[in-house]
């Protein structure tokens, strides 16, 4: 069933805003050679705390994680903004956001050094963004609004 105009608009705006957020976050990290997730990882909480602290404590693993994270953010963001391979990007985004959530879950009784920007119980903004990303996966729009539309047409033309 094709989207209605308002559905299309809402989905495209959601895709571009999340993409914007990811691309900017990734870009800032890529442009700052000093950036590292070390302190964020050391501040982890919840049941997977140990794993994240291990990453932070292991220089080569940390360097790898840092670069995967920054490039991951930037490429997922770029993909969502320009509308190309957005379904893969959405899944990768869900995975990244899940890692962020698991390192800093909003469980009662866990306090973090980095203060939270609001009051959360289990659900926080990371999780909301994660589920929004899932919506993008379920309702793709790049074939309507995005580079995918050109690619698809071209591909069909060649076939």
């Amino acid at each position, binding site marked *: 069933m094709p989207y209605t105009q308002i559905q299309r608009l809402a989905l495209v705006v959601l895709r*571009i805003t999340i*993409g*914007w957020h990811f*691309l*900017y976050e990734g*870009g*800032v990290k890529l*442009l*700052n050679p000093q950036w590292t997730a*070390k*302190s964020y*990882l*050391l*501040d*982890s909480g919840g049941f997977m705390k140990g794993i994240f*602290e291990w990453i*932070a*404590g292991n220089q080569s693993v940390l360097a790898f994680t840092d670069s995967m994270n920054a490039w991951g953010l930037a490429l997922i*963001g*770029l993909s969502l*903004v*320009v*509308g190309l391979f957005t379904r893969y990007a959405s899944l990768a985004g869900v995975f990244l956001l899940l890692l962020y959530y698991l390192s800093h879950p909003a469980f009662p009784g866990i306090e973090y*050094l980095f203060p939270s920007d609001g009051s959360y119980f289990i659900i926080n903004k990371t999780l909301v963004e994660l589920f929004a990303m899932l919506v993008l996966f379920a309702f793709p729009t790049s074939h*309507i*609004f*995005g*580079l*995918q*539309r*050109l690619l*698809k*047409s*071209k591909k*069909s*033309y060649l*076939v």
Partner: protein
Amino acid sequence: MSTEKQDQNKSKLSRRDILAGLAALPVVGVIGYGLLRNKADAEKRNSSLLSDIKPEVQNGIPPLIIGDTLRVGIIGSGGRGGYLMKALGFVNPDRIDEYTEKGKTDKYWVQYLNDFREQEDLNVKITAVCDIFDKNAEKAIRAGANIHRTGKGSKMGDAPKRYATYKELLASPDVDAVIIATPDHWHVPVALEAARNGKHVYCEKPLSWSIAETYEIRKTVKESGIVFQLGHQGRQTESYNVARSLIKQDVIGKISLIEVCTNRNDPNGAWVYDIAPEANEKTIDWKQFIGQAPWHDFSLERFFRWRCWWDYSTGLSGDLFTHEYDALNQILDLGIPHSAMASGGIYFFKDGRTVPDVLNMAMEYPDRDLTLLYSATLASEKNRGKVIMGHDAYLELSDTLVINVDPQSTRYKQKLEQGIVEPFKPIFSYVPGQGAVDAVTSPTEKYFAGRGLLYTYRDGKAVDTTHLHLREWINCIRAGKGAQPSCNIDQAFEEAMTAHMGTISYKEGRRTYWDKEKEVIV
């Protein structure tokens, strides 16, 4: 076929397709602009601010000097003595089992035990113990024998010998160095005897209980040539070293005021310690406890909570102000103040104690054009921080360090006008390896950690500052040739005299002065 037709239709890119396909590209441009701006701003700030600030951040700790096993005697093995033994690598096997048991429900203790087991082996043997309370002595003997850092039932090493008096211990040829963790009124008598016997000394703070003995111990330590370290483990706190290097570079401008404080609000922090059920006149050598203090009949309260009485203690000035003072002396080479004025009272803990639970002191340094203010309460945990106030900026210090710019600064005037720096906003902060703060739980521990007294971070790993402080002392002993630790007898002398000036001022209700020439308090 209808699908083929559809494909045919799609095969040609309409203007509509191209528009819809490329419409989002300008968004990438906007984000790109945002990123470049962000980078340019950051570079502008960094290049103009950090170009003239070069903090010296110590990279790791110096290597442990290899040498013969150091044979250590413990004099006073109560709470602090036990902690010092742990920092040397020795814990009673019962405690190890206790940590293991607690670790089953609380991961903090698993980490605690792991950290202890991973603590560097300093090549030390505990050969002698002296404590006038049987239970403490027995605990220390068991800890000293626990060379493999294991629980009950595992293989132990040689048990240290217990001595009835410190004099007998210090006469023993099996002892190279001693740790003194007695009540304050015993620090100097024990340290004097140790120095005379050529034993190296790690003495808990404050150096002395009375003024007269302070001169004597300085003279004796210097003549004996032993390595003396006073137990201000804050000397090992990295942020203090960074602060010293920043102030030397005039980052905060002319300093006129320094504010430090003590804020505690629990019985333990107010020295109301538990009384051990095993304690009685038979298990405690009361006469030896009294020592140079005025005679008092046997009292369990006085024995366990000795910090509450002037008879054995130096009160807030000697016990807690000295931590703050020594940190500042380390950072600024303050020395002994020109004058001190103190006031306060027993306002909360009306439990028969003679030392105040609220104390305020103003110490003047006219030759440095600055005042050192100390304010303490044992009945509120509102932390007022440690702040060094300069004309150009103020430096807030704990285990982290933050420098905020003053809006009226001369040095940063141009940068303020250009908007490169903002008033009251941090221009420099130093956070050593953020994470492991979570290993600190009790209010007292948190208090200490906040002040860098319990843990410090080297390369992001939590390290016990007491361990580092003992390690430095041991390294100096092994290095020989007059090597001096960071809190040596001269620093200790300054610490003790400064604390005494405050105490006398409080007790006598008058301003006290330091006569620099004659080295006397008047």
